[in-house]
């Protein structure tokens, strides 16, 4: 009997609605679930060198062995696909009930291939008494909800949920592309019916390219563990660790993630005004204390979460730290109400707040430099809210922002002002004040991201211990460990915030008790390493290389002139050299044959290599979408300032990415 996993997944062809059940116990064992299982299935079914929006590319939703158990912060699932924003393999994950329902429907994963002939809802009804064991149907939207236009900008997240719930009946949980995603915005997120976002990378646009309006799942099967008694004991121990850690027991519950604002600022690591400075004087107005005292009406958490970091405010869910930074410090706006309204609009229309805030910040800098030919300045909160709406609705100047700063800045002839790595915008930690975080951004497989291996712990919070945040040597080991830990948490489907309180050691024991497998801490690190290397192999096959492991020129060449991080230049080449050696990769950042063999990835590596020959007609590699557009814009300066010509509306997302 299978414990911890259901032992069943579904491969669904959207072209004709055919669904086929399968199981890959070898991949479950080696990649665990969630992100890892999804990445492994991507390598099985996907084409790294072809366009990311091609129907043949898979899109995967998967749960993990801890999803829906009593383990703290474990009600999560992953979405894995290709990002139109970065061109890399990409995943996001969220809490809420969807992952729990997926497992209760008897499924570990859903693999979507092809493209539906019309907008459709994938309906999985795994409730007992229904078609056994799980009924998967592709239902045309016009039959289910005939009166709506899926591309109507007014069809917001809450309207989508309300409409689908009313038509599908009770018991279903939903994942759906936001309306911005449906309209093809590369910043368009995925949303769940319980208001969670899978924000980054444009996964909403990726799922929309398959004309999937939503995935709905219902289930009522039990979720078991191999050794329930031991599992509960370990959960009790995990809860003790969470209660004993002030980050998870006090800071996040009381302030939410906004608690970081003052801490990061005081370290000179809060980037402001499009990363021009770390000495911005508006922090007190938008910090965790301000959010608590001026806005917070209560708090809430995802399914099964003990930490409950979400702020409840008058207009819905309050802004997180990254959002406060993106619409606040990055844009020079120090008004909480404005930031919250931008946050609310992004939730309703489904735009990633980090990416959009970073893009507006870039536009503000260009505006102040007189490049845009229109008035736009840092600190203009009124204009910021207008731009959010325009970006969401795909109209006016704001429409130019919905594909991220790399493309936007290039159109105006200043690609150097886009703060991104591999097409993904840098989040709210300035590498000039946290050198290890810079290495984390540069080496992340999905572009600049703090969630792939967060050096916030060792560089600012002292978790597991404090290191010199300006040191350039000796950090590859802890970063690699944290990158693997993040991959394993994403694959077990546990929130990374729990990782502030306990690490792989306790997690591996919980996984062992849940699955009945013998899983040591070393095994979990090996799983994380396997996932990381397979993502890397995918990206290499897609055309990425060591030259993409870098940071924006502003970060490397313009040290801060004042504040706690003044005059602290980063030696990224030295850090990368050490990092590649720590990973057992060649100097060009490619996993060597011995490493591939050690991780048991020979089959996947050979398959990806052979498929890297299978290219699009333009034969330049699908993974280079943003770079191609940036290069094209640079070569075509007269076009600067105009949105590129191309199909609008439904066909927009079928652009050559």
């Amino acid at each position, binding site marked *: 009997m299978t414990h911890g996993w259901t032992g069943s997944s579904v491969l669904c062809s959207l072209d004709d609605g055919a669904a086929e059940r399968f199981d890959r116990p070898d991949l479950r064992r080696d990649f665990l679930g969630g992100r890892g299982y999804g990445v492994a299935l991507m390598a099985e079914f996907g084409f790294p060198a072809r366009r990311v929006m091609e129907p043949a590319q898979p899109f995967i939703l998967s749960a993990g062995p801890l999803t829906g158990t009593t383990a703290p912060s474990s009600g999560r699932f992953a979405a894995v696909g290709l990002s139109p924003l970065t061109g890399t393999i990409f995943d996001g994950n969220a809490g809420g009930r969807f992952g729990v329902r997926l497992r209760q429907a008897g499924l570990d994963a859903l693999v979507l291939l092809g493209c539906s002939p019309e907008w459709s809802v994938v309906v999985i009804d795994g409730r007992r008494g229904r078609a056994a064991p799980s009924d998967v149907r592709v239902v045309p939207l016009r039959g289910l909800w005939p009166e709506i236009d899926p591309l109507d900008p007014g069809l917001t997240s809450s309207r989508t949920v309300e409409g689908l719930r009313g038509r599908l009946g009770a018991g279903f949980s939903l994942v759906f592309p936001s309306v911005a995603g449906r309209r093809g915005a590369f910043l368009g997120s995925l949303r769940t019916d319980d208001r969670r976002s899978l924000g980054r990378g444009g996964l909403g646009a990726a799922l929309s390219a398959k004309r999937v309006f939503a995935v709905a799942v219902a289930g009522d099967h039990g979720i078991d563990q191999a050794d329930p008694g*031991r599992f509960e*004991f370990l959960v*009790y121990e995990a809860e*003790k*660790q969470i209660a*004993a850690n002030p980050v998870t027991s006090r800071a996040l519950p009381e302030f939410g993630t906004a608690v970081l604002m003052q801490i990061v600022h005081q370290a000179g690591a809060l980037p402001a005004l499009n990363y021009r400075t770390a000495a911005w004087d508006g922090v007190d107005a938008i910090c965790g204390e301000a959010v608590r005292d001026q806005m917070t009406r209560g708090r809430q958490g995802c399914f099964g979460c003990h930490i409950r970091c979400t702020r409840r405010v008058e207009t819905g869910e309050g802004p997180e730290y990254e959002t406060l930074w993106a619409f606040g410090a990055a844009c020079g706006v120090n008004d909480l109400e404005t930031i919250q309204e931008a946050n609310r609009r992004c939730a309703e229309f489904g735009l990633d707040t980090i990416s959009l805030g970073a893009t507006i910040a870039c536009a503000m800098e260009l505006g102040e430099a007189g490049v845009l030919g229109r008035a736009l300045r840092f600190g203009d909160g009124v204009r910021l809210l207008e731009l959010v709406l325009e970006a969401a609705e795909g109209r006016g100047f704001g429409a130019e922002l919905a594909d991220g700063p790399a493309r936007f800045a290039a159109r105006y002839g200043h690609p150097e002002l886009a703060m991104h790595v591999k097409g993904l915008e840098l989040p709210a930690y300035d590498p000039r004040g946290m050198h290890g975080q810079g290495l984390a951004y540069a080496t992340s497989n999905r572009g600049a991201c703090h969630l792939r291996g967060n050096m916030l712990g*060792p560089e600012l919070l002292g978790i*597991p*211990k*404090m*290191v010199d945040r300006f040191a350039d*040597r*000796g950090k*590859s*080991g*802890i970063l690699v*460990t944290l990158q*693997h830990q993040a991959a394993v948490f994403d694959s077990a489907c546990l929130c990374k915030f729990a990782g502030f309180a306990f*690490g*792989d*050691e306790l997690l591996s*024991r919980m996984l062992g008790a849940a699955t009945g497998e013998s899983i*040591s*801490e*070393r095994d979990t*690190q090996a799983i994380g390493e396997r996932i990381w290397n397979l993502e890397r192999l995918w990206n290499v096959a897609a055309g990425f290389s060591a030259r993409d492991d870098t940071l924006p020129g502003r970060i490397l060449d313009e040290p801060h002139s004042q504040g706690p991080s003044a005059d602290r230049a980063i030696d990224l080449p030295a850090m990368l050299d*050490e*990092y*590649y*050696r*720590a990973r*057992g990769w060649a100097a060009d950042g490619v996993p060597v044959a011995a490493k591939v063999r050690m991780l048991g990835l020979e089959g996947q590596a050979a398959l990806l290599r052979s498929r890297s020959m299978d290219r699009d007609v333009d034969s330049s590699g699908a993974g280079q979408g943003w770079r191609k557009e940036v290069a094209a814009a640079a070569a075509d300066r007269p076009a600067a300032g105009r949105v590129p010509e191309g199909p609008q509306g439904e066909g927009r997302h079928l652009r050559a990415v």
Partner: protein
Amino acid sequence: MGRDCFVSGLVNSHAGNMSVRIGDRLLITRRGSMLGRLRPEDLIETGIDRDDSGIALASSEIMTHRAIYAHTAAQAILHTHPPHGVVLSLAQDEIIPIDSEGSYLLRRVPVVVAERTVGSQEMAEAITARLGESALCMLRGHGLFATGRLLEEAYQLSSVFEASARIIYLTKLAGITPIEFRRDSEKYGEW
């Protein structure tokens, strides 16, 4: 940190060693160095799994350090001779703390046995075999190997271990029968 180890009594004058992993290299203390008085030249760099001339200067326990790096997720290793821990290791096959901090951080530390207790393959294999189940492993009659993601983490665990061992030792010495205050504490034996 070396000075802290000496001052706190975790090592005597020339005992103990420590290393950190840096990519495919490791930095390890020099053979015969004094942890309480480490100088820059006492830190020897050599290969994580391959010798170079640095091996002539490296700690005599480098074989065990390399084996640990090869078989665990450790990024740093600290080897000390905590007196109370050594005493307990002479009589027990595992050391289970009875105090609060030790319970939170260690839960259970295995004790292994080797005939040749310095720089032997036998010792390296015995220790790495058990470090999969704990961040610490005690070699009977010799000392403690502690691992961590950072050296400071390994030092913290070593320090907590010796404090816990001392509490067990004093409790036994005083003839006290502890009143249990922890839920499910009997399960730490299966940790």
